[in-house]
Each structure stands twice: as C-alpha cells, then as structure tokens.
C-alpha cells in the first residue's frame, strides 16, 4: 500500500517538472488587476510584475527611475517634466511613449469611479512635448507627487488593450512589466509568464510566476513547509519558529511603512475628555505588545512615520508606559476611580489578542475596556460615522509622509475616525505638502507629531513589519519597505 502510494506520488510529481516556476502564497485573492479600479493592498503584489511604473522605490524609499529615466521640477514645484525610456513595448506590442503616459494619467484622473482620482486630483493637465517627453502641470506644489507615481497611479497600462477590452481589461491586464498575464482562476491562481522582450536585458530570470491565495495562516505555512510554494507573504508571528527551524527555508523581515493603533473618538463617549485620552494612552506598553503579540516582529511607534521613512524623527521618544501618570490624568479628568469604554475591533485571532493585551494594561489603572468585535465593513462604516468610542484600525502606509497623515487627522478628512479638528495641525499639514526641501518637511511633520501625541486623536502603537518566508533556493528579491515582492531579478538556484 505504502509503495503504491509513493509510486503514485512520484508519478504525479513528474508532471510538476516545470523548470523555473516560482509559486507565491498570498493571504488573499487579488480582487482587481486594473490599477485604476484596484483598492486592495494585495492587488499590488501581482500588478507590480505586470506593469512598470513611471518611477519606483529603492530599499531606502528613494525615488528611482523606471519608465521615466529622469525628471525636472520647474515653476516652483508645479511642473514636472519626465523623460521617458525608449524602445519599450507593452505585452500586446503597443509602443510605450509620451502619448501612452498622457492616456494613462488622464484615464486615472478623469474616469468616473477611478480609485486613483483622489491622489491625482492636483494635476491640472498632461502635455505631450515630444514622443519621449511628458510635461505634467499641477494646480499647486505637491511634494508627494513622485511618490504617488511609484504606486498604482504611475502604472502604465496598454491603451490599445483598454480600448479593445473595456470592462474586461481588469481580467486581461496588459502592461510593460517583466511578466505577462497568462490566466487566472478566482480563488485559485494567477499565472504570469516571462516577458521575453523586457526592456531590461537579462531580466526576468525565471520563466513563470504563479500566485496562489491561502487565506488561512496554517494552510499558507503548510504549503511553504511542504515545498508546494516557494515563498509566502505574510507570515503569522506564531509560524515564524516553524519556518526558522526548517533548514530549507529562511525568514525575511521587510520594514513597514504603515502603522497600527487606536482611534479615540473626540465627539462621543469618555474620550471627549482629553485627560482621559491621555490616561488610557499612558497605560499602553508598546514593548510588551511587540514581544507578546508579535514575538518581536513589530516596531514600537512614536507617531505616523516609521523609522526609515523621510519624516521619522528619532528625537521624538516612543511614549513609555506610565501608570502614575495615568492615575494623575484620571484624577485631572475627574474620574479618579477610572472609567470604562468600548474598543471595537475587526475579527481575527491576532487582533483579539492585541485587544486583550490593551484591556489588561488599562485595567491596572482602573480603566475597563469592553472589547467588541465587528465585521470589517461594518466597522469602517460605523467608524466613519463617528459612532464608536474607540476603534482599532491601522494604515498600510505610503512612501511619502503625506500619505500617512493628510487624510487622517485633518478636520473632516475622509479617514479621520476621531472627529479631531485642529486648525494649527491643518495649516502645518498643508504647508508640508508644498515644501520640497526634505529637512523642512521633516521639521513640519515633527511639529505635527508632537501635537498629536498630546491631543491623541489616535494612539500610534506599532509599525507592522512584513515578514516573508521563502525557500533558500530563491534569491534576488529586493527588500523594499512598501512590502511588495519584486520578481524581476528573482532566480531559483540549486536546480
């Protein structure tokens, strides 16, 4: 019986002998492969292989050339002139040039329902100067502009394919990237093949890239351990040991650019009282959170800007747990015996554990935390309507600091779930957008961070890092803090 089984397995593995295929395990099935309609983070994992962007990020989050080989900023930061790479073709044979850049930027900013329209709303017009030069005029200086083009808004899709396929484009994406779309089966796999005519000679090295979604952490890690996939992202903290103990596998940490923490509602419940906000915030021990819940894979946070990003200010300390201060603030807030509030979280074992850690810490100062689990869509809806007292929602992060704060703490901003409004913060935020000198921007963001640490619309608790697990044979994947795996230079050794 056993011999028979082994024979069956060997026989079937014969069919797997596809050389140089890398299989990637994701935590979700990417919903939409059209950058214009994409709003899920996981989409970008696949999109980054199919589409090139005008610019890319390097390991230090600096903007580097991609389809744009260079750029000039003119007229006090309101005009960007891009020089484009020559001889690049889309997968369907269409030439890449200034016309196609104009087509893409105009499509993103003016198609109804475009998810990109918001971040490109400051574009006034896009002009074709000559086939390799594009001139983009902004309504006002906007420092984050290049960083935005390093993500989905800078992805170039084939105009021919968009015009030919219409609504079906998202199921048949065409770009200039290192890999071409082959097929997808929802909830099962997305198959990409090497772009033989890629503009960067000698790349990509592998022949095929297969993405498979495994929503369950246990199943995802089991697939890595058994060798059925070569790389998984992300790895749950509890599974790190299993991967580290396997001689064929390694764990890589990607420093993150996002943050996680707690919104405190300034318009409802106990947190209308500033002293009570400060009391609760003082009970949180960020190091314990990191050690207990994330086994050392998260970074304690001092604000919206993680270490390694432009606006991070080392001189602003990570707030320490201080129970004496908490009690003092409780007295100041008129509730010396403590108070209680409801913390709303989305379902999930890690989030629940995290909430329980907060609960235990607050209890020591006499603050009772009731934990309420609400399904994610409802949670966002109620948070946006300011119906919740406190809610744990984080942000995946953007390479430019503006993307981590502008839409969050500004008066009436789209993602301001605290109802916080401080004209001084607003004016600093707007100034930081128009200043281009990095030192000057950092200084403005430091001022904002300090005000927020005091006012507490949000308690920044930690910066998540992306942990990936991969086969030792797989190499050539750069560690870029946006957490996107780039397979252009990846190779599979040992075959």
């Amino acid at each position, binding site marked *: 019986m056993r011999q028979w089984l082994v024979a069956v397995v060997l026989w079937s593995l014969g*069919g797997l002998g596809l050389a140089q295929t890398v299989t990637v395990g994701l935590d979700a099935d990417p919903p939409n492969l059209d950058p214009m309609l994409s709003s*899920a983070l996981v989409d970008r994992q696949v999109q980054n292989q199919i589409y090139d962007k005008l610019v890319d990020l390097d390991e230090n989050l600096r903007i580097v050339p991609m389809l744009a080989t260079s750029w000039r900023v003119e007229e006090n930061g309101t005009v960007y002139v891009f020089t484009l790479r020559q001889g690049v073709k889309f997968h369907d044979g269409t030439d890449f040039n200034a016309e196609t850049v104009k087509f893409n930027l105009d499509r993103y900013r003016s198609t109804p329902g475009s998810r990109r329209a918001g971040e490109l709303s400051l574009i006034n017009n896009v002009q074709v100067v000559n086939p390799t030069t594009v001139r983009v005029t902004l309504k006002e200086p906007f420092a984050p502009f290049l960083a935005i083009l390093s993500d989905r808004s800078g992805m170039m899709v084939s105009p021919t394919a968009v015009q030919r396929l219409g609504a079906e484009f998202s199921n048949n994406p065409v770009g200039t990237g290192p890999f071409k779309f082959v097929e997808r089966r929802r909830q099962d796999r997305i198959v990409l093949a090497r772009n033989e005519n890629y503009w960067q000679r000698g790349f990509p090295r592998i022949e095929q890239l297969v993405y498979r979604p495994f929503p369950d952490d246990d199943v995802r890690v089991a697939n890595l351990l*058994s060798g*059925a996939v070569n790389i998984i992202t992300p790895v749950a903290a509890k599974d790190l040991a299993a991967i580290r103990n396997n001689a064929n596998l390694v764990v890589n940490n990607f420093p993150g650019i996002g943050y996680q923490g707690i919104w405190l509602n300034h318009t409802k419940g106990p947190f209308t009282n500033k002293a009570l906000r400060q009391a609760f915030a003082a009970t949180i021990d960020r190091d314990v959170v990191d050690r207990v819940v994330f086994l050392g894979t998260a970074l304690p946070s001092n604000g919206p800007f993680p270490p390694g990003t432009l606006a991070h200010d080392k001189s602003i300390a990570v707030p320490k747990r201080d129970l004496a201060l908490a009690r003092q603030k409780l007295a100041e807030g008129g509730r010396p015996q403590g108070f209680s509030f409801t913390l709303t979280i989305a379902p999930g074992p890690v989030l629940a554990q995290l909430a329980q850690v907060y609960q235990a810490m607050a209890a020591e100062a006499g603050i009772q935390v009731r934990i309420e689990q609400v399904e994610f869509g409802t949670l966002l809806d109620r948070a946006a309507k300011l119906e919740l007292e406190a809610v744990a929602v984080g942000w995946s992060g953007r390479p430019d600091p503006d993307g981590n704060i502008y839409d969050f703490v500004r008066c009436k901003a789209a993602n301001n779930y605290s109802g916080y409004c401080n004209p001084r913060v607003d004016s600093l935020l707007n100034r930081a957008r128009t200043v281009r000198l990095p030192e000057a921007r950092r200084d403005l963001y430091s001022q904002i961070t300090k005000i927020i640490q005091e006012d507490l619309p949000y308690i920044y608790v930690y910066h998540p890092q992306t942990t990936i697990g991969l086969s030792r044979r797989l190499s050539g994947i750069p560690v870029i803090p946006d957490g996107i795996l780039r397979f252009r230079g990846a190779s599979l050794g040992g075959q």
Partner: protein
Amino acid sequence: MFLFVLRRLIGGLPTLLLVTVMVFALTRILPGDPARLLLGEEATPELVAQIREELGLNRPILVQYADWLWGLVQGDLGRSIRGNEQVALIIWQKLPTTLELSFFSLLVAILIGLPAGVLAALRRNTAADASVTVLALSGISIPNFFLGILLIYLFSVRLAWIPPSGYVEPWVDLQKNLLLMLMPAITLGTALAGAIARFTRNSMLEVLSQDYVRTARAKGLEGRVVVYKHALRNAAIPVVTVIGLQLGGLLGGAVVTEQVFSIPGFGRLLVDSVFNRDFPVLQAVVLISALAVFLINVLTDLLYAAIDPRIRYH
C-alpha cells in the same frame, strides 16, 4: 414517471421563488456596505457614494429585487461587484470542481460506510460492531477543518507524499487531480461515511429479523446470498434517503473543506462573497445550492423505485 418528474419540478417553483426572496432579504440585512468593502483603504465619502450609485445600491430594495428577478428569468445572473466578471461565468467555473469533490466524497462515504454498516449488523454485539460504532461516531463528530489540517500535517508536511492543497482540472492533469482530491474527499467523506454506517447497520438489523429472511435461510440459501440479495436491497431504502439528505449537507462541509485545501469551488466562492458583500455572486450561489438540494430530493425519490419494485410513481 415522466409526469411525476414534471409535477415535482413544477411543484418546486414556489419553493425556489421563496428562496429568492429570502436570499435577497438576508443579503440586505447583512451589515457592511459593499461599496466600502470594495474601496477598502481608499474610501472617501464621495467615492463611496459614487460606487453605490454605480452598483445601484441606493435604489429601493424592491426595485433591486425585481431587477434581479427579471434578469434571472432571462438567464442573466448579473456581474460580480468585486471582480466585475459575469456571475454565470464564475459559477460555471466553480461548479464542476465542487461536483467532483462531492462525487469523490460520496464515493469515499459509500465505500467505507456501507460495508462497515453491513459488517456491524452481521457481527452484532461483537468487538467489530463496537469498533464500527466508535469509528462512525468519530467520523460524524470530528470537525472537517481539524481532520483536514491533521491530514495536511501528516501526509504533506511530515511524510511529503501529497501536495497540501490546490486544484488541477482533471483534463489538465488527471493524476494530479486525483491525488489532490484524495485528502479533501476523505475529509469531507468521513462524516457522511459515519452516518451511512450507522443507518446501514440499523436498517440491516431490522431487515435481518424479518420473516422472509428467516424463510430464505430456512430454504437453505447460502448466507452470502441472503445478505446481499435479499436483505441489503431492502435495507437500502432508508440508507438512500439518508444519503440524499446528507448530500445537501455536503455543501456545508465543502465550505470548510475547500477553505482548508484551497480548492476553488462553490464553498470558497460562498465564503468570499459573504465577506466581500458580493451580492450578485452570493445570491446566485445560494439559489443554485437550493436548486441542487431540490434536484437531489427528486432524484432520491426516483431511486426508491429503482431499488424497490413495489414503489411506483404515477
């Protein structure tokens, strides 16, 4: 017979209409706004409003229902909110996978459950009988996700005999397809096997105590002929009923099993469409599941006649 089938099918229409009302009402009671979930991090109030408008979610609910029903009558299931694909196409891609999984699970269940039940009845009150009872109860009681993960750890991670999860269409690679189906079919089939074993045992015991069995034995017929020719056939009717009823339950088990083994079938589709509030997909999946259970019931009735000549439909 033909008339009977026709009558049953027409009789089912009001039930299915009721299902459409219920599924529509239930999806709309679900908290969570599809537009918000669709937009995720990027949501701004204006964009949410725009998407709701685009999806027709701000129209009166009765209008939405009538619209959906009208589409249904014309054979149009709509487009997925999440992926913007034709719902009919998605269903068409997923259904065969789950049918295959159900088929193999049923096969596993019958191959294990039927002999085990017969054995237990023939060796009544022996160690064999007790073991079958214990195993049957375990089969029914062990949750699918637990057994599934257990199998993956044993056969994929520890022994590395079988890939842990995934799916390959049989026409692409039949061997791989069968290999990948093995663990899910066992996971899903064991619960049903337990039920079948218990019902077969009880039914067999009852039949074996009947006069005609005694008569057959008294005539000097061989034990095997008595058991397989006379007793089993008569014992089969309640067992077929149970299998028919449990097939509907297979779909529920498939939801979990497909999740564990990453099989892109109906169950995964159901879970994902609930989480994403992908109403058109969710409605179609529930409706087609209801239709499947209904058809299985008709089929079960027809099977009775095939097994027992005394039963005739007019």
